[in-house]
Structure formats: C-alpha cells, structure tokens
C-alpha cells in the first residue's frame, strides 16, 4: 500500500507544471487565489490607466508652448477658471475611483474571508525556522504529526490554525491564498481550497531571524481517497526496521544527539524541540522545503546543517563515515 | 536691491507675555509633544487592560492615598502658580521671589509624594505587563515633575541675581504655564492608574 501511495504521489509530481512547486500569486490553484489574482489584474488595469492619463497630461503640458510672459504675475482669468474646472473634475474622478476600488476591495474581502465547515483542520505552529504540523482528528490514536509539509484533500475547505512559539512568522502559500501571521500568544486562522492535485510551495513571510529566507513549506493536494490513505499511513507509528543496515541506522540514530530534539513514534525518541521524523522519508523535501528529498540530500543535511542553513537550531553532530550510510538508509526508510 | 522703508519698529518692546512671547509658543509645543506621549502611554495602558481578562494582573490595586495626596497637592498648587504668573506679569520682584520659592517647596514635596506613590503601587515593574505599564505611566509623569521643578529652581535662583530684566518675568510666566500642564496631565492619569484597577 505504501508503494501504491508513493506511486500516486510521484505521478502527481510528474504531471504538475514545474518540477518544483509553484509559488506565484499569478498561478492560482484554488478559488481564493483565483479571486485574488482577478482582483490584482483589475486594480493593475485601473491604476495603469490612471498613470497613463496623468503622463499624457504632463507630456502635453510640457510640449505646448505658451507665449513668453514678461510679468509672471500676469494671469488670465479665463485660463484660471478653465483650469479650476478641469482640476475639479479630476478630483471628483479620483474620489469616485477611490470609492469604487474601496467597495470592490471590501466585497472581495467579505467573500474571501467567509468560512464554511472544513473537511480538515490543521494546526500549524511556526518556530525558528520550521513548521510544526498537527492534524486535528476525532480520536487521539489517529493524531497525525509532521513538519514542513501539509497534505490536503482536493476541492474541500481546509482550515489552518496558526500559532507561534517563539517569534512572529507568516504562513503564505501564494498559489492558494494570501498570508496570515503566526503570532505568539494569539491564534489566527485561515481557510482555503485547492482546486487541483499538485504540490504548492509556500514560504514564511515575516522576518524571523537568521534563516527566515529558508523557511519554506509545501502543500500537497491529493484527491480525497488518496488523502485519506495518507492520513491513515501517517497516523501509524514507525515500523521497526527489518534489514540489518536500517537496524544499524536506528541504533546510530538513537545513540546520537538526534533524539534530544526529534520524535520517531514507536521508538524511544520523543522530543518535540525539532520536527517529527516518524514518516520523514515519505516527504517531498528536507529542511523546510530547502532541499528536495533524496539520499544525497539527507546525507548532506545530517552531516552539515550549519553549512546549508547557517544559524539553524540543528547543530552539526559528528557522524563517522561508516555511520552515514546506515543512518541515511534508516531515515530514508521512515516512510 | 534698493530698499523702500514702509514701517518703523523701533518703538516696539523687546519682551511680552502669553502668546506674544515666542518661548510661550515653544512651551506650548513641548506641551503638545509631551501630551501626545502621555496620551500614547495611556493608550498602551488601556490596550493592555483590554487585552487581558484579569486586571490588575496578579496584584491588588495600588494604594490610592499617595496618588490622592498628589492630586490634592497639585490642585492646591494651582493658586500659588497663578500668583507667580500674576506677579511676573506685574513685574513685581518681591512677589515673584516669594511665589517662586513657594512653588519650589511645593515641587519638592510633590517629588517626595511621587516616591511614596511608587513605593505603594503594590506591584513591581517586572512582575507582569500591568506592573510594567503602571510604573511606566507614573514614571513619565514623574520625569515632567522633576524637570519642571528643576526649571523653577533655576528661575528662582535667577530672580536673586543681577539678571532680573523684563525678559526674566516673561520666563517666569511661561514656566507657570508649563506647570498648569503638569497638573492638568495628572488628573486623567490619576483616574486611570488608581481607578481602572478598581473597576
């Protein structure tokens, strides 16, 4: 079953537009983002029109040559009156435009921030510099805890509750919705829908320290039955390793500093300082959507996190060359 | 460029009182900016009050007697302050010296009461946000009290030197103006600091 799921996920990746997930507001993949993109183009159109109009008037004012006036104070009342009328008209036009845009904005706001009953509720907690993801489910033995990746069912409303444990972060997946901040001491909430299966990239959008630039996340939208399958898989603890290499890797993992920060459900590693690694190998990326998932990247990250993300809270742990391959196999096998 | 004289100002005086005095306007400017500071600090107090379910936070309300004593003292000081102002406008040296000394003494008593207030707030500045903002607001007002006292002391000293001129009387009047602000700003702050925790 795991094999089937991986195949399904792989085929989604194969069929999405880019090899890397989209992170553009102009590439909307959900109804909220589509609405926002339309709003963006309407505003851009109106504003461009206004700017062009002002530039034309400016150009005309510069090109037309009036006769030299020996006394600068000599003004013609007719010209002054005409200018007053035109300026007055322009002011009225500005006011009407502003009112119209405000109304448009307000109506969009009401529609976009309206809530319906969610199919899935996820609590995302921002930490320096990763995302803790917990699915709220009915029964405690079905808790799904992961990090840096959110799986959602296609076409259904998803509520994400936003909290922060240290500093202010901001949850932003441009192709799905606008951003919302994660503020310590406060719980915020957004709701969005993904229209199509795919992988959508997001990034922290509030300066949060050294590795703000590399605090990415992925939203993976799966058709509902596949999503349910994924939930079931994720709620299970890690299966004990069967082959000797992975067994050795598990020993290395549990004897080094790793267990000081990480949880692998089903083992003695239970710390919540760093991301939950129970199903680490099934993820699309490593280190908050900074590196694509692969054996080589797992090795690189584990050996030198400070080199890839200087200042990150994961220290460089010394791993002997002969320990690296089993450890990587163990981690990659946490499907 | 050649000049064409249209008006002569030689007979104008060199100092004045109230809005004729540029220093009066400078004082008004300081009142505006410091008043804004008070308003914002009070705004922060009200904001934190509104954000917290319980207020005071883990403390009993401050003992209001020191604050009330301050209120009474400051309101009572309005009369000698007005006397100092009147004496200055009359340019009567003897009365100016008298009332400046009275205001100096009252100022020192007020500063003493302010220390007493701090000692009876029933919360520390580092206990929680309620303690922090209470100390902050009271501290802001204390700074104004102390600086105006300093101003008054220097002016009082000056009135005993050879530098007593028309302009000094104008300075005394402007200093009295500033004291009105110190008193007026205490009234709403007193109500807030001692009243809101008791709601």
């Amino acid at each position, binding site marked *: 079953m795991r094999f089937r799921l991986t195949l399904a996920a792989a085929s989604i990746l194969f069929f999405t537009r880019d090899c890397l997930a989209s992170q553009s507001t102009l590439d909307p993949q959900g109804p909220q983002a589509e609405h926002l993109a339309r709003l963006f183009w309407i505003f851009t159109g109106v504003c461009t029109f206004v700017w062009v109009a002002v530039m034309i008037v400016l150009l005309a004012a510069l090109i037309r040559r009036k006769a030299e006036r020996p006394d600068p104070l000599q003004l013609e009342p007719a010209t002054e009156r005409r*200018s007053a009328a035109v300026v007055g008209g322009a002011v009225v036009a500005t006011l009407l435009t502003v009112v119209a*845009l405000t109304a448009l904005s307000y109506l969009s706001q009401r529609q976009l921030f309206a809530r319906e009953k969610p199919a899935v509720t996820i609590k995302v907690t921002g930490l320096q510099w990763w995302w803790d993801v917990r699915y709220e489910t009915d029964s405690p033995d079905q808790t799904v805890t992961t990090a840096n990746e959110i799986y959602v069912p296609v076409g259904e409303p998803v509520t994400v509750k936003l909290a922060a444990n240290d500093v202010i972060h901001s949850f932003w997946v441009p192709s799905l919705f606008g951003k919302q901040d994660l503020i310590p001491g406060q719980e915020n909430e957004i709701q969005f829908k993904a229209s199509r299966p795919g992988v959508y990239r997001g990034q922290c959008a509030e300066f949060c320290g050294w590795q703000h630039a590399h605090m990415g996340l992925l939203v993976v939208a799966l058709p509902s039955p596949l999503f349910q399958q994924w939930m079931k898989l994720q709620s299970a603890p890690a299966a004990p390793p069967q082959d000797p290499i992975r067994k050795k890797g598990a020993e290395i993992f549990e004897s080094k500093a790793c267990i000081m920060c990480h949880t692998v459900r089903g083992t003695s590693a239970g710390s919540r300082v760093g991301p939950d690694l129970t199903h680490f190998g099934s993820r699309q990326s490593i280190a908050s959507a900074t590196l694509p998932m692969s054996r080589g990247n797992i090795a690189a990250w584990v050996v030198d996190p400070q080199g890839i993300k200087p200042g990150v809270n994961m220290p460089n742990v010394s791993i002997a060359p002969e320990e690296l391959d089993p450890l990587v196999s163990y981690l990659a096998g946490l499907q | 460029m050649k000049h064409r004289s249209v008006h002569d100002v030689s007979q104008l005086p060199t100092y004045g009182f109230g809005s004729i005095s540029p220093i009066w306007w400078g004082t008004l400017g300081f009142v505006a900016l410091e008043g804004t500071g008070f308003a914002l600090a009070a705004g922060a107090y009200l904001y934190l009050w509104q954000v917290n379910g319980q207020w005071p936070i883990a403390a009993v309300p401050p003992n209001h007697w020191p604050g009330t004593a301050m209120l009474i003292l400051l309101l009572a000081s309005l009369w000698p302050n007005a006397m100092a102002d009147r004496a200055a406008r009359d340019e009567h040296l003897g009365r100016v010296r008298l009332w400046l000394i009275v205001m100096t003494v009252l100022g020192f008593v007020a500063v003493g009461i302010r220390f007493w207030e701090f000692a009876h707030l029933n919360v520390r500045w580092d206990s929680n946000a309620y303690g922090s903002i209470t100390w902050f607001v009271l501290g802001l007002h204390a700074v104004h009290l102390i600086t105006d006292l300093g101003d008054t002391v220097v002016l009082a000293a000056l009135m005993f030197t050879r530098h007593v001129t028309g302009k000094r009387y104008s300075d005394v009047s402007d200093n009295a103006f500033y004291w009105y602000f110190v008193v007026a700003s205490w009234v709403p702050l007193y109500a807030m600091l001692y009243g809101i925790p008791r709601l």
Partner: protein
Amino acid sequence: MTVSDATARDDLRDTHLGDAELHARLTRTWRTGSGWIERLSSVDHKVVGRRYIITAFVFLCLGGLSAVAMRLQLARPEAKLLGPDLYNQLFTMHGTTMMFLFAVPVMEAFAVYLVPLMLGTRNIAFPRLNAFSYWVYLFGGIFLWASFMLKIGPDAGWFAYVPLSGPDYSPGKRVDVWAQMITFTEVSALAVAIEIIVTVFKQRAPGMTLDRIPLFVWSMLVMSFLIIFAMPAVMVASTMLILDRLVGTHFFNPAEGGDSLLWQHLFWFFGHPEVYIIFIPATGMVSSIIVAFARRPMFGQLPLVLSLIAVGFLSFGLWVHHMFTTGLPQLGASFFTASSMLIAVPNGIQIFCWLATLWDGRPVFKTPLLFVLGFFFIFVIGGLSGVMVASVPLDAQVHDTYFVVAHFHYVLIGGAVFPLIGAVYFWFPKITGRMMSERLGKWNFWLAFVGFNVAFFPMHILGVQGMPRRVYTYLPEMGWGPLNLLSSAGALILFISFVLLLINVITSLSRGRLAGDNPWDAGTLEWATTSPPAPYNFSRIPFVTHREPLWDNRERLPVVTGLSVDSREVVSGTLTEAYPELRESSPEPSIWPLLAAIAVAGTFLGSIFTPWAVVWGSIPVAITLTGWFWPKGTPEDEK
C-alpha cells in the same frame, strides 16, 4: 509691560544707516567667528543647516552602500557573498539609516536653512536648541555606525518587531543600540520641529499674511506638526523595548500579559506619519521648483495648502494598513483600506494643481525641473501601487514581498529623493554662491531615472511571483534569478548617478559659475539677499506685499526699519497677520548646546547598559542645561 530702556541709550538702529556701514555693523553682530570654539558655538541657522545637509548626505551614502552590498548578494540565487547574519545587519542598517538618519534629517535640514530666509527673518527661533539638535543627531548617527563597525550593530530590521527584537531572541546589545539611536534622532527631530513652528508662527516678515506664506514653508510647517504628534509614539515604543530588554518589564511579553501587537500599533502609529514627514517637505520643494520654472504663480494655492493639511491629518488614520495580516477584525481593517485609499484624493489635488501650473506656464528645462518631472513619473506609480496594497485582500498576497519594497521605494525615492536632488540643484547657488554644472546635472538625472526604474520596477514582478522580503538569498529553482540580476544592475547605475551628484557638488564649489542673488529669477524672499547670504540674512527686514514678493517688487524691496544693529534682534509678529509686536532678541553663539548634547549622548549611551545611567547622567545634563540658560549679561540676554 514696559518698553525697553535700550531705545533711549546708545542702541543704534538700522533706520538711517548707509549700506556699507549697515553691512559692517550687522556682520560684526551676527557673524560666527573662525576659531574652533567659535565654530562649535555657532547658532547661525545657515551654519547649522549646512552641517545638517552634509551629514545627512553622508548617511545617505552609507545607507546606499549597504543597499549596494545587499543587491550584490541578491544578484544570484544562493550567493555566498554575505551570510545571513551580515545581511540581516545590512538591511537593518540600510532601513534605519535611510529613514532615521537621512530622510527626515535632510528635510529638516533644508527647513532649518531655508525657512528663516523665506520668511524674511535673521535666524531660526531657539537657535541654541537648533545647534543642540544637530549635535544630538550627529552623535546618534555615529553611535549607530560605530556599533555596526564593532559588530554590535542592530539586525532585527528597521522596524524591530517583537518578540524577535526582545530579550529572548535578540540577546546582546544590538537591538539596544537601535532603540537608543531612535531616542537620539527623535529628540533632535522634535526640537527642530518646535523651532520651525515657532519661526513660522512668530517670525514672519511683516505683511506675510497666511495666504502669502510660500508653499515650501507650509509644507515644512505641516511636517513639523506631524513630527510632534507622531514621534512620541516611537519614543514610547523604543523606551518600552529597552525596558523589556534591560530591566525585565513585560510590555511585549504575552506570557505575562504583554502583547506583541502593542509594539506594532505604537511603531506604525509613528511609522505611517513618518513617511509623510518625509514626503510632505518634498512637495514643498516641488512647488518651489515648479513655480520658478513654469514662470507663473502656483495654480490653486489655497487647495494645495488645504491638501497639505488634509494629508497631514489623514496620515494619522492609516497605520493599521501595515498590520493587515496580523489577524485583526475584518471590519476594522477595511476601515483602514478606506482611509488609505482616501488619502489619494488630497495627494491627487496636489498633482493636478502642479500639472495645471505647468500647463499654463512656459517650462524651462533645467536640471531642477528634470528631477521634478522624474518625480511625477515615479511617484505616481508608487502612489498607485499604494492604492493596491491598501486593499486588505490584495495586501494579503503582496504584504511582506518585493512588491511592497517596490512600492515604498517608488514613493520614497520618486516622491522624496528626486525632489530633494532637484532642490539641491535649485538652492545650491543660494547656499554656495555658485551654479552647478547643467551638463553633469542632466547626466545625473538620466542615470538616476533609468537606474532607479531598472532597479525597482522588476521588484513588483518578483513580489507577485512569490519572493518575500528580508531574505538573504533564494533558491535557484524559484526562477527569480534573472529579475534580481537586472535589479542589481539598476542599483549600480543608480549608485553611479549619486557619485555624479557628488562630483558635481564638489567641482561646482570651486569652479561653478558665480550665481548672483537670483539666478533663477524666482519670487520668494531667499532670493532677495546675496548668494551665499550674509550672516545677518537681510540688511533690513522685508515687508511682504504678495505671495511672490520679488515678482511683485522688482525695483525696490519694501522693508521695515528700526531693528538694532549692534545686538541681535529679529521682528516677532502676530500669528495670522504677521503684524509686528516685538523686537525679539536672538541668542548669541554658545558652547553650551554642544556640551549639553555630549551630556545627553553620554546618558543615552550609558542607559543601554544600566538604568542608573539615567540617574547619574541627569547631573551633567542639568549642569549643562543650566549653563545654557543662565544669562551672560549681554544685551541679547538682558533686553
């Protein structure tokens, strides 16, 4: 109220003196000496104003170099030029320097230099406070940059959001340096604001009724009011931050009843008016230049003045638009959308009146006007992208992205820096007595215009393509590389244009064509005196009959007589009519402002290490302030 006895004694007045003797006596009375102590004691607004301008441009240079370093790092994805720590310090230094050490001080600097001249008076109000404010500003700026050089420079952004800037997540003194630098610059700015208001209210030349006040002066007056009501907010906030970090208060600690959003409210209550503090004076510069180069009085003087005041008021009602993504109630947020869009109306009125003036005028295409034209092109784009970010839902996408970076650089560089450079070309002749090179000026303009647009327009696109702000690098797969490279190239061109400006200034100082009193044939009073002005500004105080005094009185300048020539005197008048009511004495040079600034600087510096510094520091502060105000028996003190 007694008339001063001095009239009866040997107090010589300017009424009957010939030009040569008048000039000689007034120069002796008003001059700043050439010795070290005299120069440090100067209270001449022109001397202080020049120092302010030069210092502000030095900080512009430092802020600009930070930006160049940032753009070099961002030119390529995952570049290894700057690590995250240094980058975070650089973008903090860039924003902090530009906003606190350059943009506001340079506008105040032009006010300090030009407002007394435009008003027809001899010095600014409270000249010693003026000197003091310069020293405090200088010390604050040195404090910040010295800290950066010593690797304790701030790194939490120019806006220093808590909890990141709080004691838990920014250990050490870095953020304390930032917060205290704020105190330096705000004390300085507030002092200058009060001086400007009192100068404009009380020291206008007789006859300069409200409708005859130049638009430049109106803009500086509105700026000063904004400073008075906005800057206390950032002082309160930064003081609270230092207290949280130093003595354990909990203003911003949610675990003990504090709130992170309190910081944002206080900071942006200041922060939004701050950008108008920068922009409104620039509109005054635009107005002056347009009137002079369109060769006609401004169309719509009254609507323009009312618009300036309206913008000033409205600017206090916008601040929440910086907080649209923090989870505030929707209805409240949308009110701020309405107010943020509404401010486009008075800003639009200004633009339409300027266009009407140019339409009916006969434009002279010299460098100052070119920069004003560049202002129109760039600022209107910025204003319109501002209308876009004012919308709550749209802002949800573009907030904290390079779109916003593009927006505010378009309004700040287009709306303030372009007019500022135009102002430099326009008033350099008055300040130095020499013209700047027109040829270099045109090269300056075109490089600045092209460089700016190439640097910043692509950022709009990068923002909507998903690139957030304040990132030291980005992944190659995002596809943001090419536009970032283009932007960095533009930044270099823009930087070169500033180098050209510097070259033009330096070479013109010694080789520029002599300017004469009024090279542009402009109408306002600063052009009625010599270039550079004599220490006393005007040998007799002008009497004003028109909004453009020099266009109304081309043959002879109407003046008032009767001021003393052997002691420093200015005319003080009523608020609306400028009817003379006092011969106000203006303070002589004094070393106390510098000493007081040193005492204040020492207190501020010490207070980031211990709260007791405030207690101990208050002693030298009290001593120097007393020395400052203690009369010295000179005629100016005694009258």
